[in-house]
């Protein structure tokens, strides 16, 4: 019981990170109908920028406390957002209107470019970081097993919920959110209504990158070790989450992320840590075979 509760806590905090990344996949798919395979690497970039920000702020003596972490988050969001913008501008926009596979191939190429760029500029070795947020609270104790909710986990859950709340308001209530949804549903009509569709697509990439950068910061704080390759696995799992939730559905991406996090954690806890990735990817295969529209995918009948 206590053991399972601990896994639940771990699974949810891991799932939140996947969810944040998955939102970026699903958003880009919704608006331009392509899978941005470089998105996992944007998450990795976000983690690296966070690490560099932590080191610089520590050198300047202004790291420490919640204010420092908030500052790291902001720096990471801004710079990763610029990456997101540049990626769309350089690798996808010139291919718009080209055949369907072209941006997909471009995305895979870009993923390799980003990994190699970080590998060359930051080195290939894993980068450890000293623990910034240590400890946690004891939730319960049973037969000598202590269920702990780490402060980093609370941070992940709190920050993710706050970011998703802001994001939800942005998408459902603001002119930019309406423009994004309009472009997603009928880009030609959006143009006829005076919406600058190129700008809206750019901003979608910026927002997706910003969410991934938050995931990157959280990952760094929680696990403390990153390298240039973390984006691949996290990216594919977040993609699985987006598919499981129903690609194109924003709540679906968060739900899918949580489920993948939970499945992976429970699988590791009760079956095999070595094969935890197999569990996540089996879900991808099963979803694609038996539930291609995902859990919250569209089933609405639309009149023509």
């Amino acid at each position, binding site marked *: 019981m206590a053991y399972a509760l601990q896994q639940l806590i771990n699974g949810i905090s891991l799932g939140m990170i996947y969810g944040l990344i998955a939102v970026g996949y699903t958003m880009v798919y919704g608006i331009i109908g392509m899978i941005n395979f470089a998105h996992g690497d944007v998450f990795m970039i976000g983690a690296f920028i966070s690490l560099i920000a932590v080191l610089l702020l520590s050198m300047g003596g202004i790291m420490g406390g919640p204010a420092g972490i908030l500052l790291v988050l902001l720096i990471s969001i801004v710079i990763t957002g610029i990456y997101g913008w540049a990626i769309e501008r350089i690798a996808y926009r010139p291919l718009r209107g080209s055949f369907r596979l072209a941006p997909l191939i471009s995305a895979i190429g870009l993923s390799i470019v980003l990994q190699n760029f970080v590998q060359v500029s930051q080195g290939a070795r894993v980068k450890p970081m000293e623990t910034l947020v240590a400890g946690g609270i004891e939730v319960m104790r049973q037969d000598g097993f202590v269920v702990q909710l780490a402060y980093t986990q609370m941070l992940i859950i709190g920050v993710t919920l706050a970011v998703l709340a802001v994001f939800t308001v942005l998408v459902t209530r603001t*002119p930019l959110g*309406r423009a994004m949804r309009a472009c997603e*549903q*009928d880009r030609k009509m*959006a143009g*006829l*209504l*005076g919406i*600058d569709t190129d700008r809206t697509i750019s901003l979608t990439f910026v927002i997706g990158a910003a969410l991934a950068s938050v995931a990157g910061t959280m990952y760094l704080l929680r696990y403390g070790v990153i390298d240039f390759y973390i984006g691949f696995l996290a990216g594919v799992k977040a993609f699985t989450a987006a598919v499981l939730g129903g690609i194109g559905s924003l709540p679906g991406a968060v739900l899918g992320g949580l489920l993948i996090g939970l499945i992976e954690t429970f699988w590791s806890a009760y079956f095999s840590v070595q094969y935890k990735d197999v569990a996540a990817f089996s879900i991808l295969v099963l979803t694609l075979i038996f539930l291609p529209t995902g859990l919250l995918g569209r089933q609405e009948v639309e*009149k023509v």
Partner: protein
Amino acid sequence: MTPLLEVDRVSAGYGAVQALAEVSLHVMPGEIVTLIGANGAGKSTLLMTICGDPKPRMGRILLGGEDITGEATHLTMRRGLAQSPEGRRIFPRMSVYENLLMGAEALVKGDPKPQLEQVFTLFPRLKERLAQRGGTLSGGEQQMLAIGRALMSKPKLLLLDEPSLGLAPLVVRQIFGAIRALNAETGLTVLLVEQNANQALRLAHRGYVLVNGRITMEGEGLALLARPEIRDAYLGGGHG
């Protein structure tokens, strides 16, 4: 007086298909002008070309005397153009209210309430369906929504693509009546594309006939209606 819209020997099309060949027409401020023609004649392409999507391959398009040829669609639309397009293109997963809001948001500044009220007066049905998703409306309701959305930006020039398509005769009469009233009361200029030549020519001040991407006839609405070749070609041999 400068025409509000002037299409000057425009050729356009999609890919290898040439849909329009040296089409010229003009619309004066305050006029209702109709463009009639059979399916595939290029009517919808012409409306879309005026909006900059696709771009003309040859020729010029002037709006209020200013050359807008080749301008990005969203910029052209912000000059006071609105279109209720072919196929209606309602945002299926937005509410009726949001669809209407989209009609004003990026095109005009200021509170959209007055236009919203105007649309509700015109189509009370939309007010009842305000929270409903666009994709779940009936064809007629979607048509009303498409026209209502186009009116939300208080356009100088309204482009209507087959507003009568798929609607009950009663609703068609209502929509045509609304267009006439808007034109008479607010001086709204309208370019109306129709297959329903009889009603369109009765409503319009002037008309053009488009055949295979070329303008073959033009003249006053009722005068065109009286021409035997129009009666034969577009009014079902006198049964219209």
